[in-house]
């Protein structure tokens, strides 16, 4: 710790203290500082402060202060210092930055901001730099490189994912802790989660159901947005062009005055579509147009922070068919999918005292998806809406979220967190019984973090739920972290997860000439047990900081909901709790860092339960290698992102009750980029290439016969090799 005493700035009884980073001397804004005034003949007086954008706090009295700071990325600071009002310059305190955890703060699932190493959960963090170096526009681009995450793309429904072998309907996607609503067939289309306003992404594997309730059975992906500038004025713009016909632009303006800030951002993404093979009019990768905007306004008031956030997203996905030629007409059947998401929320953080905080979220989100289909006359170039049941459809969902978390730190060893979580969901759609349905979910949850000795930390948790439509389970969780040494940690966890039946599964009513599919109001929630053990070893070797993290996991899912024939005479299909499923696997991640170089390599193998396999599990491996190197003389950051996805075997049963084997071929992808900043970092240019191995389709073998044949023997995975250029402009004016 480097402590420099400077001059006081004496302004009528007010004294200033400046906090800076030891690495670059820059001021640290929004730093939480606990100051206990120690008068000579009186009781200590506690005060809590948050530094301004210039890194300063002001205190009313001169004298001795106990200063305590606990902030991610910095070594914990505690010292007693004398603040003397006769000095002209502010007292300067420098905080030492931690090498291993630079910028790797974790919010998701924590009582307060922590570093990744401090967290009891197994957390993966993807920061802004990685997002930019990878040229990732949306969450689909970003997660394509992650281990234990598989993406499955439907050119019309979009891209879903699986994590630890568990499908996307069991993965909760949050933005600043608020769930993203609007699942199509149970999954969120990752191409609709735009990263323009995202600061970092936190991924937690394994159930987070105590904290986040339903749909978090497999894990949670939390996107943390940019919260506003620390400068007086900031104007930024970002343009992105990719050779597959992508043209993106977004801009933002940020203003700050004292403790208040305002940020307005917005943009447009345009993808003209790409066809693989002979299709021309109909593209394998459908054209998309997206418009999005955010308003973020916040202020500090005494010991509280308040923020209003409003987000808007709109997308048009175009699905054109190939022309149908007849002797007297040429026409096509085109469908357009319009998606709109709006979210408005108020986020408040209250520091009640030095030991207690209260965080609350009030948020209202809406989702709307419209399908509009037309018969287009390709001779006259006119179109008419198709008047069929499936041709036009509108689905609407809305969610009121009320969430509050009270955290109390009894002492350094024991903290307690309790909260409430109220979700009021409403859905409308022609496929829902009565066309409208509602679900109300009320939950109380609590967890404690208890340090025993200097090495062991335990974190039990429990969630109680009342749900208006189904029987909700009691949800326990237990996390353990043991520090074998200061550089060798082990984590173990057990958690119960659950996924609530969706409105569709409860209330679907799809009965016509060809279909008799009905929901089931007696459904139970899907449940799972997750076991996770991981090790974390940090070290230094030859100037490198090295991290090694092996881990194993097992998920048991039961009461899984699926469609089944309940009455063959009536051909009646209903959703019932029918299946069980398991996944297990192991992974090892390594990181190597030194000045100007970082390398991350990993291997994972995941087994998925299959009753027809000899060992009841079918396994599929993955490898990953990411590397970034800064060429010193020209200050160019060169990055490579490589992932190998092993072949995925499987077994299925055809209509003749015969077991047959399926196999999805292995494939590899590699992206590369070079980044350089100009003009005092006002302009940053990134040029790169994606999918250097030019993978488009992969082979899928093993399809069943039936009345409707037509199973694909290839799966579209990627659009082929593309090149991109990204220009970022950042103008800052700071008074």
């Amino acid at each position, binding site marked *: 710790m480097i402590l420099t005493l400077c001059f006081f700035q004496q302004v009528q009884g007010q004294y200033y203290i400046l906090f800076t980073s030891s690495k670059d001397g820059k001021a640290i804004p929004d730093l939480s500082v606990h100051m206990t005034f120690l008068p000579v003949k009186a009781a200590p007086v506690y005060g809590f402060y948050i530094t301004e954008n210039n890194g300063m706090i002001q205190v009313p009295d001169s004298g001795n202060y106990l200063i305590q700071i606990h902030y991610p990325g910095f070594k914990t600071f505690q010292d007693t210092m004398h603040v003397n009002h006769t000095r002209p310059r502010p007292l300067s305190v420098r905080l030492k930055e931690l090498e291993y955890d630079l910028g790797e703060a974790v919010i998701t699932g924590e009582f307060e901001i922590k570093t990744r190493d401090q967290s009891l959960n197994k957390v993966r963090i993807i920061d802004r730099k990685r997002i930019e170096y990878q040229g990732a526009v949306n969450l689909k681009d970003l997660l394509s490189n992650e281990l234990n995450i598989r993406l499955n793309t439907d050119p019309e429904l979009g891209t879903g994912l699986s994590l630890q072998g568990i499908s996307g309907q069991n993965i909760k996607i949050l933005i600043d802790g608020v769930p993203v609503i609007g699942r199509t067939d149970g999954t969120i289309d990752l191409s609709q989660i735009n990263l323009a306003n995202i600061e970092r992404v936190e991924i937690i594997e394994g159930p987070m159901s105590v904290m986040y309730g339903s749909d978090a059975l497999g894990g949670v992906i939390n996107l943390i947005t940019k919260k506003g500038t620390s400068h007086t004025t900031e104007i930024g713009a970002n343009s992105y062009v990719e050779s597959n016909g992508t*043209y993106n632009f977004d801009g933002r303006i940020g203003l700050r005055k004292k403790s208040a800030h305002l940020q307005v951002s917005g943009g447009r993404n345009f993808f003209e579509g790409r066809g693989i093979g002979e299709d021309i009019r109909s593209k394998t990768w459908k054209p998309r147009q997206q418009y999005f905007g955010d308003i973020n306004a916040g202020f500090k008031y005494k010991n509280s922070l308040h923020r209003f956030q409003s987000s808007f997203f709109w997308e048009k996905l175009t699905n054109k068919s190939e022309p149908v030629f007849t002797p007297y007409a040429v026409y096509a059947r085109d469908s357009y999918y319009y998606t709109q998401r709006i979210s408005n929320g108020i986020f408040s953080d209250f520091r009640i005292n030095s030991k207690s905080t209260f965080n609350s979220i009030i948020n209202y989100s809406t989702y709307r998806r419209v399908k509009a289909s037309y018969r287009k006359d390709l001779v006259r170039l006119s179109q*008419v809406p198709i008047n069929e049941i499936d041709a036009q459809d509108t689905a609407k969902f809305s969610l009121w979220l009320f969430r509050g978390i009270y955290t109390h730190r009894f002492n350094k060893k024991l903290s307690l967190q309790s909260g409430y979580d109220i979700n009021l969901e409403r859905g409308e759609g022609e496929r829902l019984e009565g066309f409208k349905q509602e679900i109300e979910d009320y939950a109380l949850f609590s967890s404690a973090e208890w340090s025993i000795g200097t090495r062991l930390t335990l974190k039990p948790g429990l969630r109680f739920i009342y749900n208006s439509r189904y029987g909700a389970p009691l949800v326990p969780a237990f996390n353990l972290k043991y520090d074998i040494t200061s550089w060798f940690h082990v984590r173990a966890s057990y958690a119960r997860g659950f996924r609530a039946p969706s409105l569709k599964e409860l209330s679907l009513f799809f009965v016509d*000439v060809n279909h008799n599919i009905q929901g089931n109001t007696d459904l139970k929630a899907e449940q799972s047990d997750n076991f996770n053990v991981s090790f974390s070893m940090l070290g230094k070797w030859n100037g490198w900081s090295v991290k090694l993290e092996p881990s194993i996991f097992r998920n048991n899912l039961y009461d899984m909901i699926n469609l089944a024939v309940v009455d063959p005479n*009536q051909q009646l299909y209903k959703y019932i709790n029918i299946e069980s499923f398991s996944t297990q696997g192991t992974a090892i991640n390594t990181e190597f860092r030194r000045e100007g170089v970082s390398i991350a390599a990993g291997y994972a193998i995941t087994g998925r339960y299959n009753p027809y396999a000899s060992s009841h599990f079918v396994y599929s491996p993955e490898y990953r290698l990411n590397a970034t190197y800064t060429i010193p003389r020209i200050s160019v950051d060169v990055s490579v992102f490589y992932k190998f996805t092993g072949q995925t075997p499987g077994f299925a049963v055809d*209509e003749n009750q015969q077991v047959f084997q399926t196999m999805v071929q292995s494939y590899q992808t590699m992206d590369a980029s070079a980044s350089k900043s100009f003009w005092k970092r006002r302009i940053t240019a990134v040029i790169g290439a994606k999918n250097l191995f030019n993978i488009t389709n992969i082979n899928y073998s093993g399809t069943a016969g039936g009345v409707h044949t037509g199973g694909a023997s290839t799966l579209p995975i990627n659009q082929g090799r593309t090149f991109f250029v990204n220009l970022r402009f950042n103008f800052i004016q700071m008074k």
Partner: protein
Amino acid sequence: MKRTALFLPVLALIFFAACEKEEKAYTLPAPGNAVVEQINMGSDYSKVIFYNLNDETFSIEELADWDLALESTTDGYRALINGGTGVQVAPMGDTSFNALYDIDNATWKWDPPSFLIDSTAIGEWSNNKFITTREVYLLDRSVNSSFEQYKKLQLLEVTDTYYLIRTASLDGSNDQVIRINKDPNVSYVYVHLENGPLAKYEPRKEEWDFMFTRYRYVYYDMTPIIPYEVNGVVLNAHNVSAAETRMAFDSITLEEAMKLNFTSRRDFIGFDWKYYDFDKEAYITDIGRVLLIRSHSGIYFKLRFIDFYDADGVKGAPTFEFQRL
């Protein structure tokens, strides 16, 4: 900063201008001499359309108006069930109409898709001497029926001029005897178990060549066997036959047609003149398949299907062109 920030809106304009490419228009060839006809079965295929090639007329009936079709010839006694609405029957091996029968013990049967009258689901419930077996049948009209799903059925009597059938609910209620008069001008007379006999359904034998209808096709080569409701074309049983070729439609002459093998199999045209294309997400008609039809009047026609959608893009509206040879 002001000057340098000015170019940002210009850059934004460039990117916001990116848009979808304009569509190109196609040009059609000049029309030929064939008659182009479009009929509409409804997007739910609820209509049956009887077509007459000779005078280009057609009549429309409701598919769900009947449960049984009975041979209308003086010596006829066999019955067809309405497979298009999902009707199936199960013989009970018993003649006691008042007994209670359990549908769980029923072995359901279907008519052949070819409409072969000697292989029906009901089978030989009588013979050419009009001696009836009096066997009781259970009849299932499927869950989609707006009437009672399960009924009991028994042929009491058949003569050269009428049928007497008895029907009731499974619990014995709604017991009634229905008389259906034969009509020598048509091939079949039709009856609905609640609404009684239909005064008219199919046109006179000499006034139609084929019908568009929903009917049952059975995939006997699958395990288990799959009955499937299809929408297709069924020939008139009276004097109509057909053949097919893949020669160019415009080049087919009467001489070429006479060389082909004609069949009176009723489902020869069938339903596979169209197929569902998953890439185009639409039913595509096989315009290369040309049918030759010897109509009820003895005149030959060539015909092909060219579309399955109406001008509003709604399915169930077959378009076909035909020409007298």
